[in-house]
């Protein structure tokens, strides 16, 4: 088993290599001179020249790629053009809000999505099942930021139960932290929850018609025990996969959700960087986020081996 895990780990290296080169190449595949674009509309030729030397755009392309990859290996992602601070520092400052938001949203999605999917599959064709399917399709089609505004309007502006926006670090107490985070997390979780519920239902439907499930019911086990121990455990592989793949949705949604709720996270950092054409910051965030995505899917692959010892790569 250890060997499989190491093999999976090594397989992520070429993927991350492609990500790193693609993120770098972005700057060069778009039409126009990157130095002119980054310097902005009102730049003088001096400004453009300064940007060009600062980003090393005057060097040959292969040298630039080498410098970029070398920096990544040493943990150096360059410096922001706007503030001059190292990109890694900026990312560290903003990581807490984003990690809190996505983790909470992920927990809500899994703890609601999976049971709801199991219930729908168990009571197939009933009104519960129909309700879950309607939720799954409409939740998946929901524009995240619009849902955020609707929730803010109902729970914060009309009812005054929760703050409209902002973020409180967890050091200042768990309650203020959660109070500020609950609406954004619910907003962000809906799409992901819909995806998980739908996948759980589909996977459970396949398993519930198996002989061993009928046997388990026949020998008088409680439905709860049969559903969770016998059925869900065997239906869990596709659900775990979708949790990993769907993480990309969560990150995309986080960018928009942070903007709605004014959370000081990586999404806001990116959007601000785009307005300022602060390209090193944009590249750094994309690289880190893609790295996290690859890492999560690596964990999913490892979980596969743990959940189902028959799987060999």
């Amino acid at each position, binding site marked *: 088993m250890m060997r499989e895990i190491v093999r999976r780990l090594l397989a992520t290296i*070429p*993927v*991350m*290599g*492609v*990500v790193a*080169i*693609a*993120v770098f190449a*972005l*700057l060069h595949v*778009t*039409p*126009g001179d*990157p130095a002119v*674009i980054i310097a902005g509309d009102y730049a003088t030729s001096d400004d453009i020249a300064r940007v060009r030397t600062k980003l090393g755009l005057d060097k040959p392309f292969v040298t630039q790629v080498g410098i970029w990859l070398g920096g990544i290996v040493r943990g150096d992602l360059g410096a922001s053009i706007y503030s001059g601070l190292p990109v890694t520092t900026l990312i560290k400052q903003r990581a807490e809000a984003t990690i809190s938001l996505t983790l909470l949203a992920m927990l809500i999605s899994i703890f609601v999505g999976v049971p709801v999917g199991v219930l729908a599959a168990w009571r197939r064709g009933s009104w519960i099942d129909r309700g879950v399917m309607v939720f799954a*399709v*409409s939740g*998946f*089609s*929901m*524009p*995240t*930021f*619009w849902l955020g*505004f*609707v929730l*803010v*309007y109902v729970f914060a*502006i009309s009812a005054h139960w929760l703050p*409209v926006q902002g973020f409180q670090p967890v050091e200042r107490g768990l309650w203020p932290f959660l109070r500020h985070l609950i609406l954004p997390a619910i907003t962000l979780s809906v799409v992901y929850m819909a995806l998980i519920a739908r996948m759980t239902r589909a996977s459970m439907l396949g398993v519930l018609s198996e002989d061993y499930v009928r046997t388990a019911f026949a020998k008088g086990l409680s439905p709860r025990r049969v559903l969770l121990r016998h059925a869900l455990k065997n239906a869990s592989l596709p659900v775990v996969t979708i949790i990993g793949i769907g993480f*990309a949705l969560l*990150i*995309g949604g986080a*960018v*928009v959700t942070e*903007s*709605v709720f004014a959370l000081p996270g990586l999404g806001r950092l*990116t*959007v601000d*960087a*785009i*307005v300022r*054409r602060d*390209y090193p910051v*944009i*590249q750094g*965030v*994309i690289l880190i*986020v*893609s790295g996290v*995505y*690859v890492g999560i899917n690596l964990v999913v692959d490892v979980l596969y081996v743990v959940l189902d010892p028959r799987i060999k790569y």
Partner: protein
Amino acid sequence: MAASIRALGAEVPATSATALSAGDRFRRFARRNPTLVLGGVVMALIAITGILAPAWWTGDPLAMRPVERLQPPSPTHWFGSDNFGRDVYSRTLYGTRVSLVVGASVALASLIVGTALGLVIGFYRRIDTVMMRVMDGLMAIPAILLALALMALMKGSVRNVIIALIIPEIPRVIRVVRASVLSLREHTMVEGARALGARTPRILLRYILPALTAPLIVQATYICASAILFEAYLSFLGAGTPPHIPSWGNIMAEGKAYVQLAFWIILFPGVFLALTVLAINLIGDGLRDLLDVR
């Protein structure tokens, strides 16, 4: 004799089936494919709304009337007015056009490019391994971030939004096409065609492409739905459709500062956006069941 009678008997229901009126046939189709028909009807209404936007008692979506700013929904402004006194109803209806153009163009273009590349990559084993590693890498970059980064380097225009949304979709189409090509490559019909002397391009276009039509149509609907959502996200974040063209995303972006005062600026375009995406996803689910994909 008995056989011919049975044959006659078999013909009777057949003729009565053709005698069914168009309305009856549609009703039967709708009963069997409720999601497809529901999605199709809603989508048709939205498309008509967008194409005939000037006909639905709309005014100039860009006309500013500072006296009438931030007015709640009323008989003169059905969806209220925004911070420049522009009519939200007119802007929302005109915004339909941007969304539909972006959704359709992104779906069509990424499908064409992705299919062409997927056919070639899937068929030649030598480039397959390398290209799939590259695709894995590209797909590890969250689509919205990739599109945002591309928009940062391009001027805000509908055409550039379409380009920025096509690029993240292409590897996903390639993957679907490639998976089907890999299984079809070993099919007996391909072996037969080879034995008859057919060359690779002919096999790809005449034997493999037709078998891909159904999954690709379903894929196209999902791409269309997500492209419409992403256009709204980009415009909402200020990196999409330029402000002088009303689109659902940038109407809501401008309403962002007035959530507490004028919630209607955000409410109505959002309802249209959610309904459109839902309708397209329903069409996708319906087509998947009808065409029996996967």
